[in-house]
């Protein structure tokens, strides 16, 4: 056996574990418990046809609901007692960085807005706006270059998927007019 293992490892603080973590995870456990309760309560209102023999459509939801509630309780207890794990490791994630709720909010909002705009202004334009805002929120320099990059990508992708692969994707008035001779 190799005796070189350093004893200082254990003393190292947990990476990616800001102090607020425990409360957040308790909330997660509580929400999970609520989901389990919802499953159990709502399963009771699923209509069971007379023809159903043995077990009907309610049995499995009860089972899943029970599993979720049990897991939530166990997880809640463990987290309350101080159990914690680091957030997921990922190539581009700095676990020591503070959470940027601003960037997160902008990305989520941009995505929601683009979803609502697709049927109004077409997919290429909606997704270009989303691309530009997301890239800007993630720290790309300026807003013009991301918009141009997004615009070119989306138009190329739209032409490939709509004209070559026949995917239903609204192109917006202008683009559909320009490419109508295809």
């Amino acid at each position, binding site marked *: 056996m190799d005796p070189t293992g350093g004893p200082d490892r254990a003393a190292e603080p947990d990476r990616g574990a800001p102090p607020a973590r425990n409360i957040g995870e308790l909330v997660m456990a509580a929400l*999970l418990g609520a989901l389990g309760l919802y499953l159990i309560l709502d399963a009771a209102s699923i209509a069971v046809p007379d023809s159903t023999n043995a077990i009907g459509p309610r049995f499995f939801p009860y089972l899943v609901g029970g599993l979720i509630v049990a897991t939530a309780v166990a997880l809640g207890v463990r987290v309350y007692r101080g159990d914690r794990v680091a*957030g997921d*490791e990922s190539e*581009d994630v700095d676990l020591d960085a503070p959470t940027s709720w601003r960037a997160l909010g902008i990305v989520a909002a941009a995505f929601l807005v683009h979803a609502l705009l697709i049927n109004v202004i077409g997919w290429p334009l909606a997704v270009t706006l989303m691309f530009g805002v997301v890239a800007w*929120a993630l720290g790309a320099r300026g807003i013009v270059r991301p918009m141009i990059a997004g615009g070119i990508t989306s138009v190329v992708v739209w032409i490939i998927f709509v004209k070559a692969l026949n995917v239903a994707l609204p192109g917006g008035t202008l683009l559909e007019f320009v490419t109508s001779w295809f």
Partner: protein
Amino acid sequence: MGLSELAGGFADALTPINLLFALIGVVLGTAVGVLPGIGPAMTVALLLPATYVLEPTSALIMFAGIYYGGMYGGSTTSILLNTPGESSSIMTALEGNKMAKAGRGAAALATAAIGSFVAGTIATLLLALVAPTIVDLAVGITAADYFALTVLAFVAVATILGSSPLRGLAALGVGLYLGLVGTDVLTGQERFTVGVPQLSDGIDVVVVAVGLFAVGEALYVASRLRRGPVEVMAVSGHYLTKQDLRRSWKPWLRGTALGFPFGAMPAGGAEIPTFLSYAAERRLTKHPEEFGKGAIEGVAGPEAANNAAAAGVLVPLLTLGIPTSATAAILLTAFQGYGIQPGPTLLTTESTLVWTLIASLFIGNVMLLVLNLPLAGVWVKVLRIPRPYLYAGILLFASLGCYAVNADPFDLALLLLVGVLGFFMRRYGWPVAPAVVGLILGPIAETNLRRALAISSGDLTVLVDTWFSRIVLFLALAALVVPIVLRVVRGPRSSPEELQEGAPLRHHEPAHVAGDDREGTS
């Protein structure tokens, strides 16, 4: 016994059109494997609509190519970026990174690629040999047996993957819930649709997989982006010297031997065999002083184990219809999209398809070996894509893939919702894969449970009627209880860093000073 069918499979797989789809698959797979933030599971999910236009053989060959390609690409990322990506690449990254830093990046990439090829080829051969035998054993399987198998897969995926069994179970529960939403197949009753008409058909697998993987990852990265330019290490030095080769071939074979059985059992995942392989190579090496500084054995072994496990996962998928990883679960959905149900009868009913698919895995492996070594420079460029553009692009393709399913913006709103869920799961260390497996395998489990109970008119003892179901359920119970007991008794698993420093693979007491209780616990 499968060999004559396999030869027939090669004849079918070597047609130009199938070769083309294999090539598309492996190139796409390598690219998404290299790129951080996306992986084979999400890519196959995004391409699921292709099943509407392509014939099954072509589509499945492409998907299998993506699956294998993703494994190759993942090793490139873990060697050339100084940060670990997916859990099964962590062990490769430990030594591979050090090698790249020491100017031996090319050798690390080469041993990973050739090791992947050796492991992939041997493991695919084992798949071809083992599959008919398992089908023979499983052909008389009852609905209750099948339900027991799904329970084992659930428990294994939830407790063995990821850092915490309880969080795995929590993720599994969320996935099972998402699988329940929609119309009950047997009675036509709506369940948990909260009055939303779009939900009566259920939540689409594409939306959940892309939401959890792509949107969840993008949001998570947005919240904690590693600032500054991306540091990609140069691919320098010789590919493989004679000495490198001498030091690599045994770890390749040992890694394969460890990886395949772990993948083939419904035990889930490549993480454990890569850990075991690393620990084994560390103990067996003639150059212990190099471990932690860039030992080639530490790249060769785990990488082979990773790929062999990936091929092994196809055994339960094809012979039993049981997926034990997120990608396998989505592959199952692709089969179902063609009205094909993987399981014991698959090898007889769809014999040509299965053997063509297996043959194309061999071909894909050769393509990957040929592609990867000369193209290493291209992948380095791909890795340098500025992150703001990369994640904006990922969201663009997520939008495209999900909108294309139903042409309904509602799906995109749902996608965002699932993405937020994925964000919080990542933030608090809940693994994502069990949720995907729960979503896809949950309805199959329910159908078999109800079928079994309908035959017995509701008598629950039918579930433990056969020895097969008893053994499988016992294994499931063991998979649930043993990790928890080990954790309570001995604390968390050794971390990759501890392994690198030379601690043996074991569960250990976290408060103890390393070195004082080694003998009793290893």
